[in-house]
């Protein structure tokens, strides 16, 4: 019965409770990401973390990366944008959703999390482990789902925050809900002067930029059984950069990035047992870069990237009884990309169906089995099953386990890139372009030799992984919750460039092939404890090993060599010297303390996040991470915040991020020094609220 109750609106009760306490472990938290419907967190057999709106506010987080950087096992990575590493996977392998709908705009693989303001969200849900069984491509390492506020009551709020680097954030929300109609709107402007960790360089580490986010949601109850919601978002960011050139003639670069989406959702409750959801999702992303010579303003270059995504989807849920729930869904995706390095507009269509069966054979056992079938013309169809189960041994001990398949489709670059570097002379072709590209070069007499079997042109498969997650949830005493998780991901068919031909001038032609194999495995520990009524303490730790399987084999075979930096003489790398994939910390931990007293209005937090040393480069010509000089040292950041609320209406908050001003200009450009900020927020509520 629990599920049905939740569906018909107990959600609001939980949320009302959540407002009053930070002791989330004691609450029946509700998440949607794991099943695409509201489910109680404690029933779900997969590893999920939920970060509540309350916690986000207490941290003083502004953008999604601020939120994720403090969560156990997550590392923030900068690679053509700010992304998140989950279970040792690069940001390309985590799907980012807003209310269950995917964000697009991975022009170079990473979806930039700084695009996402977190001022109007209810919670952030993070699923670790593949979720392709529900979401398809990209959900290989996990899913981050931003759940926005639903219109609730009649209220409005405004927040102004100012801090170091002339960073100003202004937000406003409006909520209106009466009877059948609900409206909410959110607007935000974020602007900063950026910062410069290496003042002697003329290029700033982060150049000044500003952005606007507008978001709104309308809900309407057409009848007791039929509900409509329409949400939309618009984001635009503008940044001016300075760029040196080899010719010592610097450039002014202007970059404009925008995205929009619209998401009407119609739900109809046919009966107590049958519910259908019809969703439409349309979204667009565009980036334009313009390069002008600083000296005389003349044109140097310009690039653009323009992506669109449209998807209708129908999902049907059948509640046979409280122990058996069936979900069936399907849809079609139309995707297009136009970009500077593609021939013309590239189109991509995917048809998919998914199903899920939630079964509770006995009270203590909860099983979810599901799978999704994706059919796309550019690669072989993918079936992604997932099976997970949780067994509650007793009141204080639960065991869970899951096995799932995840995939990541070849991206637009890997399929359609058509690029020749005019200065150096090499060429890179996507798999759908390589045959024609080689032919063109051959016709011009530029090809000396083809290095691969031309029959392999155009052959590409998605990258795939099989993941195993095991977990124990412990509640030894009332106020203490502990989670232990073990994970292993076996990844195959990783896509990388490979030489396909040699040109007469000695340059090479590259294309993309499924050539890599890797694994990641580790342990995750999480504990949270409620001390007194107002204080919650949590700690988290992740141990991670992430390695290239081919490198491991080559090391065993003694086929990997390095050069001694002093003599430059070649020696052999021994297997135990291998440090795994770059950018992965073996050890990461965080400790957080939150205080919130609703009577006095005081609140605060002290948080520390440690990221252990990680590899950044190859220094000794071995091609792998195997020497101490190839690591960036581990570091910790300490963040504090303090707030006071007056008359439940005015909230003053001040904070300091990176208190000890830790920076590493050479290797961690994304880490600014100490940031001090203050904010003032005003909330106005109508008397009849709630």
């Amino acid at each position, binding site marked *: 019965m629990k599920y049905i109750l939740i569906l018909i609106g107990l959600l609001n009760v939980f949320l009302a409770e959540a407002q009053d306490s930070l002791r989330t472990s004691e609450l029946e938290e509700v998440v949607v990401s794991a099943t695409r419907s509201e489910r109680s967190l404690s029933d779900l057999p997969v590893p999920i973390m939920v970060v509540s709106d309350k916690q986000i506010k207490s941290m003083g987080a502004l953008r999604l990366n601020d939120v994720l950087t403090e969560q156990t096992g997550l590392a923030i990575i900068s690679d053509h944008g700010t992304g998140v590493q989950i279970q040792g996977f690069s940001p390309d392998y985590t799907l980012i959703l807003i209310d269950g709908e995917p964000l697009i705009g991975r022009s170079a693989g990473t979806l930039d999390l700084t695009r996402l303001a977190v001022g109007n969200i209810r919670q952030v849900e993070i699923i670790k482990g593949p979720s392709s069984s529900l979401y398809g491509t990209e959900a290989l390492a996990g899913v981050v789902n931003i759940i926005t506020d639903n219109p609730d009551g009649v209220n409005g709020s405004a927040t102004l925050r100012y801090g170091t680097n002339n960073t100003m954030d202004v937000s406003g929300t409006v909520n209106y809900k009466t009877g059948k109609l609900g409206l909410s709107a959110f607007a935000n402007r974020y602007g900063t002067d950026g910062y410069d960790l290496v003042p002697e360089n003329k290029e700033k580490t982060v150049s000044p930029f500003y952005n606007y986010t507008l978001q709104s949601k309308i809900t309407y109850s057409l009848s007791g059984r039929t509900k409509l919601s329409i949400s939309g978002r618009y984001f635009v960011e503008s940044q001016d950069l300075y760029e040196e050139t080899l010719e010592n003639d610097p450039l002014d670069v202007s970059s404009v990035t925008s995205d929009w989406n619209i998401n009407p959702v119609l739900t109809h409750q046919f009966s107590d047992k049958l519910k259908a959801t019809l969703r439409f999702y349309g979204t667009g992303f565009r980036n334009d870069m313009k390069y002008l010579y600083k000296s005389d303003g003349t044109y140097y270059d310009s690039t653009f990237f323009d992506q669109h995504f449209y998807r209708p989807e129908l999902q049907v849920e059948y509640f046979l009884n409280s122990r058996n729930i069936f979900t069936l869904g399907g849809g079609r995706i139309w995707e297009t990309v136009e970009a500077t390095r593609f021939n013309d507009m590239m189109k991509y269509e995917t048809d998919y169906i998914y199903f899920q069966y939630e079964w509770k054979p006995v009270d203590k056992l909860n099983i979810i089995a599901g799978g999704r079938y994706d059919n796309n013309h550019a690669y072989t169809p993918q079936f992604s099953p997932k099976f997970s189960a949780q067994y509650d041994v007793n009141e204080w001990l639960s065991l869970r386990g899951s096995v799932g398949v995840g995939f990541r489709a070849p991206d637009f670059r890997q399929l359609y890139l058509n690029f020749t570097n005019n200065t150096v002379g090499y060429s890179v072709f996507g798999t759908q372009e390589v045959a024609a590209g080689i032919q063109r070069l051959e016709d011009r007499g530029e090809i000396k030799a083809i290095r691969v079997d031309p029959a392999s042109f155009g052959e590409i498969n998605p990258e795939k992984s099989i993941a195993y997650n095991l977990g124990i949830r412990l509640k030894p005493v009332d106020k203490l919750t502990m989670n232990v998780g073990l994970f292993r991901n076996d990844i195959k068919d990783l896509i990388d460039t490979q030489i396909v031909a040699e040109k007469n001038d000695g340059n090479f032609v590259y294309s993309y092939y499924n050539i890599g194999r890797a694994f990641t495995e580790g342990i995750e520990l999480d504990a949270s404890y409620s001390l007194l009524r107002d204080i919650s303490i949590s700690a988290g730790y992740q141990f991670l090993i992430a390695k290239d399987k081919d490198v491991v084999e080559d090391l065993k075979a003694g086929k990997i060599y390095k050069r001694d930096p002093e003599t430059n*003489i070649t*020696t052999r790398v021994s297997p135990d010297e291998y440090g795994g994939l770059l950018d992965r910390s073996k050890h990461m931990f965080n400790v957080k303390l939150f205080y919130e007293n609703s009577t006095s209005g005081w609140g605060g937090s002290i948080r520390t996040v440690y990221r252990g040393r990680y590899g950044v480069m190859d220094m000794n010509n071995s091609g792998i991470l195997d020497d101490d000089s190839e690591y960036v040292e581990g570091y910790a950041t300490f963040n504090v915040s303090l707030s006071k609320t007056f008359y439940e209406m005015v909230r003053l908050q001040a904070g300091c991020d990176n208190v000890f001003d830790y920076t590493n200009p050479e290797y961690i450009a994304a880490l600014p020094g100490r940031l001090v900020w203050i904010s003032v927020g005003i909330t106005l509520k109508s008397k009849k609220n709630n």
Partner: protein
Amino acid sequence: MNYFLKLTYVLPVAALAAFSSCDDENDEPKIVQLEAVSVSDLNSVSTSKYTLFSFDENSVISNTDSATADWDIGFRGTTIILNSGTSGPGNAAGQLVDGIFDELTEAPTDGYAVDGDTKAITGSGGWYTYTGDAATGPKHAILPNAGKILVLKTADGEYVKVEILSYYQGNPNTTTAEFADLATRPASRYYTFRFIHQDDGSTNFETTIDD
């Protein structure tokens, strides 16, 4: 052309113990261990002419002898030629073999190529890597690839193994900040390498018969 050539000649040493007690009149040939010869800062600065080198002589050969079989290998920038095919009148040939210099005790019997449209010894992706505009590490540097041994036949068909150590003057440590900075990086086009030349015609790189 003022060649800046500094040669270190390591003399073949120590006959095997088993033979050391034998007196000199003994007709049995002496088996001696082959030792690597180091060549430092071989200048390949010219952009027009190759610096020609003879393993047998362990010295640079004048460009006036380029049409003879007196030289085995030539260097011009990153390009390496062998005295064969399109590069010269000799019978030199070569290949890149993966492994450790000291562990390569025997030259392969086949797999040798002569210079043609393609050089027998591949440059980029062969003996060296050009770091280009690398995100990390030294930019625009030529770094010899670890574990690549040049196994060559000389112009006379004798076997040589060569390990290229550096492309920069003074065989510098390439992991330092001084090397990373283009302003302080030592001059390029100066080869440092070591080689073992087997002059008895066999493929053995460990010992030779001293007669």
